[in-house]
């Protein structure tokens, strides 16, 4: 399946649950409403045309001037079709998004990292703790307003 075909397939099967799908430099980029995330992810995993069975990365981007402030970004790979797709969800400052660990168990630590670095909550996550920083650390270091050298106690 080429990228164009995949985009068409996504439009055909999920036009009611996604906001937009566009061509990226390497793979299709899908923007999803927060409430529709799990429905769309389940479709990507379980539909036989897609079979996106591996979660490659979960990360986030901070846009300090924008409302909502964060984008959570999922990179998903299909081993069967050797194909990738990128899914973006916007999240407010202090807000959260439904965890995808019920679909891909491998997302557990990836989501913990996003929680640790950006302070984005993942609802229904089995074990949402900091993963890189010490447990009593109070800040979210990958936010744009956090100074590189840290904050003196």
């Amino acid at each position, binding site marked *: 399946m080429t990228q164009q075909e995949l985009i068409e397939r996504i439009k055909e099967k999920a036009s009611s649950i996604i906001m937009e799908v566009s061509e990226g430099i390497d793979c299709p980029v899908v923007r999803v409403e927060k409430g529709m995330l799990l429905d769309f992810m389940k479709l990507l995993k379980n539909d036989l045309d897609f079979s996106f069975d591996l979660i490659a990365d979960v990360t986030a981007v901070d846009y300090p001037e924008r409302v909502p402030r964060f984008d959570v970004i999922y990179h998903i790979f299909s081993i069967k079709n050797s194909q990738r797709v990128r899914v973006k969800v916007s999240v407010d400052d202090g807000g959260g998004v439904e965890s995808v660990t019920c679909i891909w168990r491998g997302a557990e630590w990836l989501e913990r990292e996003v929680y640790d670095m950006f302070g984005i909550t993942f609802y229904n996550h089995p074990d949402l703790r900091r993963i*890189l*920083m*010490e447990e009593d650390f109070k*800040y979210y*270091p990958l936010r744009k307003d*956090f*100074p*590189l*050298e*840290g*904050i003196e106690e």
Partner: protein
Amino acid sequence: MGIEKNLANLGIVTTCLDKVLNWARKNSLWPMTFGLACCALEMMVTVSARHDIARFGAEVYRGSPRQADLLIVPGTLTKKMLPMVLRLYEQMPEPKWVIAYGNCACTGGVFRTYNVVQGIDQYIPVDVYMAGCPPKPETLLTAIVMLRDKIDKESLKNRG
């Protein structure tokens, strides 16, 4: 004059206790098997035949802190890792010495960031600092020679 000569004939040598202890200690520095980052690779090379750290009696890397005398802190120390390093240090029996291996262990190096300890000497006493990124094996040998000189000057009066 006379008594020492007679003792020597009996096979007895008189000396200063400090000298004997320091001689034993400096010739059997047992380091901890422990690495943090890229500096650890250079430290491991020092044990190999080419550099042969055994010349200075420091080749017996111990797996347990309870058997080690020398803590080499080789590499970038993150704040998350710090409690484990302090615990290793505290588990080592006295007398014990510390070498800060490389720029990161000395000062934090290029990582002037929120998650890196800016020098292990903020938490435990350091005997020898080694600059370099990473320091060559020769530098570790120099550090061990310096440490041996330092041990030679120690006295039981000051240290147990």
